[in-house]
């Protein structure tokens, strides 16, 4: 189900995860833990590493055979997949920081989000889309960095002429990213089940969100630098922007049902639950079930509940105390607040900050 996220759990043994960004404001990031040092593969350890990597792909038991194959494509692949999963979680936690379910992850479980994704809910739709998007994004980035040797070079148009790189160049990295994401993430989904159908749709929507936010840049290099000859390319968007797009789509997600058509072949399609709602297109998120109650803790599903969450007293939105605390009320505590302020950033690596102390009200849900 959320297999790309599951990969995160064993990454401590593999010891090749990327370092974790420092800015994770989210409380429930225990599972991400272990900000490992950046991997240094020197020549001597390369062989050991390769076998380790082969093993590690096999050790990820929840991967289906195709995924194991894809994982074993290169020694860098595990890292890249893990990086993708990690970024997806990070982004999810950012986007849901104000919601009742804040994309919390669970320790000691292969299901990183607990059982939340067992529901075919909006949240599940979002997580699937984001995972697929993040994987495509990370793979494309690795291709651009030249870390992955496998990245494909399919020249788009030419089929009959030789497809050398030297003849006609290569396609954009995102193409391979999408292809890989489609191969890897979609491998586990079964088209015959309702859930599989929904996930496949959402995965594709996620990948399209990456594609949709790509920015076109052009460079003129004709005679005397004029625009008589121009070359254009597209930049990968920041994953945060993709998260924003998907977050909007999450809010406007369509509640659908599976319709079977018995015309010759058995075609199963997703159609809106209410006939008067417009058909979701390929970039929209779809869900089949309503979300579970995220207010109360539920160990079985891995829902932590909103007890103890900090809320915003003045907000009328989801992060406001009324909604976030599910009507249970909140406590206000005065806390010493320490904050970095008046920072001066010195490229590359130093930030000179002062620490400002203040007393602030802190509202915590009951």
């Amino acid at each position, binding site marked *: 189900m959320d297999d790309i996220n599951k990969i995160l759990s064993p990454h401590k043994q593999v010891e090749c995860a*990327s370092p974790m960004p*420092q800015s994770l404001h989210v409380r429930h990031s225990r599972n991400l833990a272990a900000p490992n040092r*950046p991997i240094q593969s020197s020549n001597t350890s390369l062989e050991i590493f390769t076998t380790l990597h082969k093993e590690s792909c096999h050790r990820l038991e929840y991967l289906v055979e195709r995924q194991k194959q894809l994982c074993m494509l290169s020694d860098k692949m595990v890292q890249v997949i893990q990086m993708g999963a990690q970024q997806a979680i990070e982004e999810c936690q950012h986007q849901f920081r104000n919601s009742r379910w804040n994309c919390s992850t669970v320790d000691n479980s292969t299901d990183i989000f607990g059982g939340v994704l067992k529901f075919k809910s909006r949240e599940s739709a979002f997580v699937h889309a984001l995972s697929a998007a993040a994987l495509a994004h990370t793979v494309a980035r690795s291709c651009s960095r030249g870390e992955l040797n496998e990245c494909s070079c399919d020249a788009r148009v030419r089929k009959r002429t030789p497809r*050398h790189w*030297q003849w006609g160049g290569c396609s954009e990295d995102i193409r391979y990213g999408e292809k890989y994401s489609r191969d890897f993430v979609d491998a586990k989904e079964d088209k015959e089940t309702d859930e599989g159908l929904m996930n496949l749709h959402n995965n594709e929507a996620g990948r399209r969100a990456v594609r949709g936010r790509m920015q076109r840049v052009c460079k003129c290099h004709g005679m005397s630098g004029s625009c008589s000859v121009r070359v254009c390319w597209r930049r990968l968007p920041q994953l945060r922007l993709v998260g924003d797009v998907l977050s909007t789509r999450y809010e406007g997600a369509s509640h659908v049902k599976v319709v079977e058509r018995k015309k010759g072949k058995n075609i199963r399609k997703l159609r809106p639950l209410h006939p008067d709602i417009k058909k979701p297109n390929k970039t929209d998120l779809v869900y089949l079930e309503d979300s579970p109650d995220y207010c109360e803790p539920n160990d079985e599903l891995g829902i932590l509940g909103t007890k103890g969450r900090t809320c915003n007293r003045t907000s009328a939105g989801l992060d406001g105390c009324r909604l976030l605390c599910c009507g249970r009320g909140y406590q206000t505590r005065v806390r010493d607040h320490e904050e970095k302020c008046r920072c001066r950033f010195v*490229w*590359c690596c130093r930030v000179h900050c002062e620490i400002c102390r203040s007393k602030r009200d802190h509202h915590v849900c009951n």
Partner: protein
Amino acid sequence: MAGTIIENLSGRKLTILVTFLLLCQIVCFLIGGLVAPVPANAQIILGTVCKDTSIMKNDTTKWFYNRGAGICEKVDLHRIHHDVSERDIVFAFQMPVPRESETYDYSRWQQNLIGVLQVDIRYHSQMEVAPRSALSIDARLAYRNKGDPDNAWKLYTQSVEKRVLDCDIDIKSENYLYNCSAVPLFELGSLYHDYYLLNLRLPVDTPDMNAHIGHIQDMWVTVINQNGGFTKVWLSLKTVFFPCIIAILVWFWRRIHILERKPVLLEKMLLSLGIALCFLNAPIEYLTLHFDLPFMLLLGDIRQGVFYAMLFSFWLVFAGEHMLIQDTSAQSSLKQYWRHLSAVAMGCISLFIFDMCERGVQLRNPFYSIWVTDLGTNLALTFIILAGISTGVYFLFLCYMIWKVFLNISQKRQSLPTMSSVRRLRYEGIIYRFMFMMLATLLCAALTVIGFILGQVAEGQWKWDDNIELEYTSAFFTGVYGMWNIYIFSLLVLYAPSHKRWPANENTSDTQNLNLSEEHEFSPLPTERSEISSLTSFIRKATVD
């Protein structure tokens, strides 16, 4: 009375010729569209952040790269490191990037390499980036060839450069990235070596240097090279056209030499146009496959410039020579056109100076750009605006002259009915063919412009899944290139002096019908003039009255 070939060519022959040329044109277009790949390829490389632990930072034998033996120690800029100083950070770009599990190398067919830098700057509310802050870059470019060991990078060039970052941001929120425009980084006129490595550092030698550029998260370099396939197709076209133009020129020159008279201005102009085309067509790119010739970009510009200058001048003289206002006795010379031609010269010289300031200096320092300093920008803009103004003035002149020619021709048309029927038919034919040539010129120009606009529009609507088999951009380039070649070929052929003799006027039955005034009109024309284009002579005759 002999004229040019176009006047003596029968309608059937002309149709055959035009059809043949059109076929050639279509072939040129299709070769570009079906065989050639897109003209240029862009490869986007994400910089690997390396840690330089050495004490001496200006050691140009120490290189940082992320593939092969001896790769560098990587740093993650997402988090803040306390053990790393800004001097230790190196952005490494190793090109080309591998694909399909193969290590790719550049081929000399790929001709040139242009680098564009894009910087991802993270927003922090505590330190906003000013809209036009300067980025100082210590850029070093190294090369390596096939068979060299992985660490055998040799310095190609090195420079400390300044670039202006043009950044803005839509959502001012932590961790969002600024939208920074792409800045040109380097231009290599020759792609002689197999692998290149770019190491970028952001020095902080003075307190103000690189102090206001914010938190750089990533650096992207897009390297653009001409596609090998496109070069091959392009060079094949040149290889075909070059002998053709040489042969036609030789033939044209011999034709003129056979005549008893000296060549007239129009013929001289045609000859120079042919020579300019020779210069453009010469496939000297073959030399780049064996020699390192960094001046090829500049030379290409000069070759195109010379050709355009000649073409523009030719049009002016062509229109002027059919103007009917010159003194009939004076042999026309270039001096008469100095005012008009000075517009062409002015435009060409300003563009040449601009090009020398940009690509000329880049021969010495590939990282140089005229656009980064305010003075340079103003200077460059001055020259470009001057060139623009000259072009405008030129076209005004040209349009005015063509308008006058048409005016005169329509005037003379009115006097046609008073002439004898044979002569009338002949003159009508000449005017028709002159119009035909004008039409061809206009058609070529219009097709070029339309093709260019179509290309821009088609590119504007970026499609992801385009299964179009025709590679439009390449087809446009080969099509336009072929078209102007064919245009000049046909000019040279059709405007060469003809051997054919007009049937003597006396033989025609209605010669006797010529009235006296007409006889009188024709008598003062000197005999040697009979060899000039009969159209011109006709027009001159007309001016006499």
